[in-house]
């Protein structure tokens, strides 16, 4: 999948991956890769700025823990983030459904 096409939906994908429970950046990226069937494989360094931006926007919260002597940042979804995820998920499903209808008619 083209990276630019994915970037437009990255925020929604990240919110969806963090939604089940608090998780750290490495696990977020691994889960994004795994859940997409290894299709979504962006350079990891470009995903962290998006996580930070979502935190600044109030959709994610984070706290630091220690793992094997290293600082580890753990992200969790805020109430505002959950609302945004629900709203955007519905919007995406409506959009994807409409796309399917049009494309099916074109075959």
């Amino acid at each position, binding site marked *: 999948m083209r990276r*630019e096409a994915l*970037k*437009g*939906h990255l*925020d*929604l994908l990240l*919110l969806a991956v963090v939604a089940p429970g608090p998780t*750290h*950046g*490495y696990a977020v*990226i691994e889960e994004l890769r795994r859940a997409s069937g290894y299709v979504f494989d962006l*350079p*990891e*360094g*470009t995903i*962290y*700025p*998006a996580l*930070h*931006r*979502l*935190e*600044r*926007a*109030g*959709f994610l919260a984070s706290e630091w823990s220690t*793992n*094997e002597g*290293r*600082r*580890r*940042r753990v992200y969790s979804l805020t109430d505002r983030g959950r609302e*945004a995820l629900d*709203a*955007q998920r519905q*919007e*995406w499903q409506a959009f994807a459904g409409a796309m399917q209808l049009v494309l099916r008619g074109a075959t």
Partner: protein
Amino acid sequence: MKSHDSIDTYLDDLRRRVARVPGGEDIVDEAEDHLRASAASLCSTGFAPAEAERRAVAHYGTPANVAREFKRSSRQGGAVASRCTHLGGLACMALPVLFVAGLAGNRGPRGEEPWHALGITAQALLYPALIFGVIALVRRHGGLGRAGWVAVAVLVISPLLVMPFSYAGLAIFVVIYAVVFGPLAVLLFRAAILPRPAVLAFFGAPLAYALGALIVTLAGGDAGHAWGIPVAMFLVAFAWFGWAMWSEETLVVSQRPARA
């Protein structure tokens, strides 16, 4: 092009590149945690440690690209306009209007009590407008949260702190303002999430007063007359903040424009 064969050399390069990005050390710590976890995972699948580090670093993205993404991201701020942002913008724009209305009421013809009372009421409304405006700003820019909330708390309690000191209280207020709002000003300015000239006007007002008072005093005038300078700067800044917040288009998270 510089090669990064080990995580340590990669992190050194990244640290240098994000040194001026807000939260630069946190960015490096997070990258280190990721890279070491990634290398450990590769080692567990059979790669030699050196090759695992090389592959982990290669997939993370070059330090230049990572730093560029963070710089872009920090310039975007945390701005996700909401109803609260727009109400905050209205409150900020109302503040100068209320101030002028209150001033006019105070200086109105003597003996016209209703007019005077209206002015006093209008000026009393400045305070909730100011608090609400600052709260909206802080909510809008969550990353500045701690400095912002400290500023709001001080804003709420400072009149009570300075009240017993009459006019000397104003000097105390200026000191509190500088200590508490100084860090917030630096963060706001660096993040570029509000119009920078307005940020400069807002936070530079006390300094402008000090300079104005010095000049007026040297010219043999009454330094008290210089109070008009910071007041005017505050009012312009608030009107500007208000307009910036009010006119910002509401975005939802997935509608943010993708950047190349």
